[in-house]
């Protein structure tokens, strides 16, 4: 493996580099984009009164409310995440992270999973950070373990879980253990079976400016646009799917244990609720046994429509097509195992 100037010993195919100001081509293109955008916004603002009655359909409005609320809820966490990922890309010397983590995956993956506890917030923050970690030279399996663990085991989420299940600390412990286990298992499976070429490196572009500040702001901008764009895709999908979730069917399933676990897992994927809040939703699903609700809590931050979309944006479609089902299966299994033991 040849060391490159971008970062540590990584495999040959490297992330393309961009200058923060943009080459003339990119800048002209950027100028066009900016003008189009401005035009679009001005037209939209101007035509509001004209279009007053057009969007009155209640189904459309309900969909829009849900879509917009998912996007708004995620936005502050996305901003936090890209600020962290930008800082990572710029402040941490290239290769340092890769050298700081243990060499052997069997140790690096659990370490990265535990490290996930330091990044507060929901999954929207963890995807861009994981993308930058990988680009900085961290082994993909470790970066992915971090990405899976952080939305589920950070202090904000654990406190929220404790509040939602008062007097039942074993639920918090179970969530922590099951999510950590999931992230480690998926990381280890990936290090064994995953192939580097499934990750689309071109999606994470290194931005180098004349000053550190320029590199930082350029990176944050890149990450925000990319992750944010795909977040919108995920939010639209989640809003659409929500319209089709047959709640009465869900209630009918509550009796059969395994079926209930699967259904709650799928519900977690479809609902795409932020990990700080899914504890309250799980607490309200009283008709389900506690360990099936743990499945809901473990699957949600690990794989849902929003996450899948963002992973496509940051790592590529080939990655997501393999990673999402793997994570789902492992998450359900880990949750049921830990649930049986602790709950």
């Amino acid at each position, binding site marked *: 493996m040849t060391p490159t100037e971008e970062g540590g010993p990584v495999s040959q195919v490297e992330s393309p580099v961009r200058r923060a100001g943009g080459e003339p081509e990119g*800048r002209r293109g950027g100028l066009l984009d900016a003008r189009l955008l401005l035009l679009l916004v001005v037209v939209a603002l101007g035509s*509001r009164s004209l279009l007053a009655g057009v969007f009155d359909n209640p189904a459309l409005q*309900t969909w829009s409310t849900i879509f*917009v*609320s998912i996007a708004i809820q995620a936005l502050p966490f996305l901003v936090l995440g890209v600020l962290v990922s930008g800082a990572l890309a710029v402040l941490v010397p290239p290769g340092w992270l890769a050298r700081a983590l243990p060499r052997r995956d069997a140790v690096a993956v659990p370490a990265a999973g535990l490290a996930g506890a330091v990044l507060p917030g929901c999954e929207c923050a963890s995807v861009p950070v994981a993308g930058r970690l990988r680009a900085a030279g961290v082994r993909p399996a470790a970066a992915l373990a971090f990405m899976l663990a952080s939305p589920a085991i950070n202090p904000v989420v654990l406190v929220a879980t404790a509040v939602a299940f008062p007097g039942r600390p074993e639920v918090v412990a179970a969530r922590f253990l099951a999510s950590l286990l999931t992230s480690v298992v998926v990381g280890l499976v990936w290090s064994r079976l995953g192939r580097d070429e499934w990750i689309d490196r071109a999606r994470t572009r290194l931005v180098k400016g004349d000053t550190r500040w320029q590199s930082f702001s350029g990176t944050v901008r890149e990450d925000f646009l990319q992750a944010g764009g795909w977040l919108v895709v995920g939010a639209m999908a989640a809003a659409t799917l929500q319209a089709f979730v047959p709640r009465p069917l869900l209630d009918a399933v509550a009796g059969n244990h395994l079926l209930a676990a699967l259904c709650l897992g799928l519900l977690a994927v479809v*609902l795409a609720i932020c990990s700080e809040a899914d504890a309250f939703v799980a607490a309200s699903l009283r008709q389900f046994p506690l360990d099936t609700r743990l499945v809901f809590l473990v699957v949600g931050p690990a794989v849902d429509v929003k996450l899948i979309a963002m992973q496509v944006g940051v790592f590529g479609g080939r990655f997501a097509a393999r990673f999402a089902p793997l994570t789902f299966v492992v998450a359900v299994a880990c949750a049921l195992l830990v649930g049986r033991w602790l709950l």
Partner: protein
Amino acid sequence: MLLVVGATALWLGLTDASLAYVRAALRPALAASGLVLLALAAATLRGAGSAPARPDGRPAGHGHGGRLGAGWLLIVPVLVLLLVAPPALGSFAASRQAPRAGGETGAFPPLPDPVDGAVPLPVSEFVSRALYDERQSLAQARVRVLGFVTPDDGGGYRLARFNVFCCAADAEAYEVAVRGDATPRRADQWLLVEGRWLPEPPLTSVAPSSRRPVLVAEAVTPVRPPADRYEHNLYGI
């Protein structure tokens, strides 16, 4: 694009507009994110402006970081907000949900004190007490609830309100069947209803029930919708 999203976020954070979608507690975070994005947009513009002149002699000019790519999609929620201006969830969404179980079985704390002759209760609390309270704290009490009209098939209506934990995506509707109000009401009209609960034995299990508690109305007042149309009651847990 950062300018547009940042400005939108700042506006959402500083006004009541976000209350239709997310909890009020998120507003400072929204405003802060908006400021961060605006600062970044300014930095990008300035930074590109001071970049050294390109070999082809063109000055940096208006300057921008580069193409938007997937970032274009970020305009969609902004446009939807501007053009559709989606309202808080209302009778359409409420009528599509099956009635949910919500509440701890067993004993509830005593009712709060009445204000102006009636006990004001959130709809979700009223429903929880009506369905689950073994001590039947609602019996004999005159209560006041605020909600919006969801028409019934049979010609009557239910008074509903959504309870939200995180954002509108996880909203759950709590509904009360209102009797004794002969005036026809529009869907989504907000009403302040004072009346008494029609007692029924409490539910003994937490399995979902299709029962809706009945409120026999004594005074119904149409009101303007509140700034925050959702309840944020963890009481049902």
